[in-house]
């Protein structure tokens, strides 16, 4: 069980916005895209690590960029983020698997192996997104 103390126990039982339902048009839940809603499913994380893992990469990046800014000045994270943004734009269409080669090389992921590479490989996933709907969503038509 969670042994981190009272503060963290309170945090686990507080409703969290990160788990929220996808809100479609008119602010009502999007039954077509995300299925039927259930209050219990959204409010509480199903595992203590779910939230921390979802945001892990973002938090690491934030920490690294702020360290870099303190050490080398604002230009360093600015240049890096510009390069990441450029590399993120060369992807395939949303329903196809892109290799993210440029992005991985910039981030240094090509020199390390972690659970993201071993478990749940997206290229082997059993579910494929519906191509037309994904394209319409990406182009903002939906």
């Amino acid at each position, binding site marked *: 069980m969670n042994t981190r103390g009272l503060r963290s126990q309170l945090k686990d039982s507080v409703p969290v916005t990160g788990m929220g339902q996808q809100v479609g048009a008119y602010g009502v839940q999007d039954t077509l895209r995300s299925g039927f809603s259930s209050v219990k499913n959204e409010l509480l994380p199903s595992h203590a*690590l779910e939230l921390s893992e979802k945001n892990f990469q973002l938090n690491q990046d934030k920490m690294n960029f702020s360290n870099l800014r303190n050490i080398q000045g604002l230009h360093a994270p600015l240049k890096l983020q510009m390069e990441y943004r450029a590399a993120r734009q060369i992807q395939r269409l949303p329903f196809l698997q892109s290799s993210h080669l440029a992005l991985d090389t910039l981030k240094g992921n090509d020199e390390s192996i972690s659970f993201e590479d071993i478990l749940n490989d997206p290229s082997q996933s059993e579910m494929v997104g*519906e191509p037309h709907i*994904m394209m319409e969503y990406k182009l903002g038509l939906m």
Partner: protein
Amino acid sequence: RKMATLSVCQPQLGGFSFENCKRNAVLEAEVTKLGCNIPSARKTGTTICGVVFKDGIVLGADTRATEGMIVADKNCSKIHYISPNIYCCGAGTAADTEMTTQIISSNLELHSLSTSRLPRVATANRMLKQMLFRYQGHIGAALVLGGVDCNGPHLYSIYPHGSTDKLPYVTMGSGSLAAMAVFEDRYKQDMEEEDAKRLVRDAIAAGIFNDLGSGSNIDLCVITKGRVDYLRPHDMANKKGVRTGNYKYKQGTTGVLTKSVIKLDLEVVEETVQTMDTS
């Protein structure tokens, strides 16, 4: 819920998936209501230990893996390879120690290829503690990491939540108290190799004979500058007994009264040859 949705919004990510946690919690509640138990993970309830001697490190481990109250594996290998000069003993959930040490070993290999240097024990320690802290103790791997690098011999103990200790002698696992008692009594600085091996062997034997979770043989790994001796098994402390009685009857115990031989007339009707597909 996920099966009904179209994966429109977020791209699929690799790594751990927490989809089934709620379902598992519900299943577990139902099963305990009926009075049964869900299957438990295989643990290595173990004795592992390590000691620094004059020229290097001696790591030792028992070889029993348990699943609840049953011995799952009588001769499992708990000393894992991390790099040519670094080895790691693992206690706790068997799959967790196995996967964690393999991932760190791969990362160290990539790291040493890009720095073109022999990896250091402190690097492996740092990688392990950062990964274990990230998962907040849910990865149940308690490790004893030892090796010899350019700065000499180093020995670390790493706990499942990510804390580490750098010490001249460490023990981990359910038999750690028995092994530590032996170390506290007989450890001396700058021992010779044979003394160190005997000390580790006795510490593991203490764990094997006094702790139910440890048993079978004693494996040792001696690491010095430029040489690794992986002694598996170093000592078979618990050999399976040999049956002293033989219940087979000698030839001729039963007397033969009559004997009749009937020849069966068989003739060859058809002969076919089928070639095997060996491509």
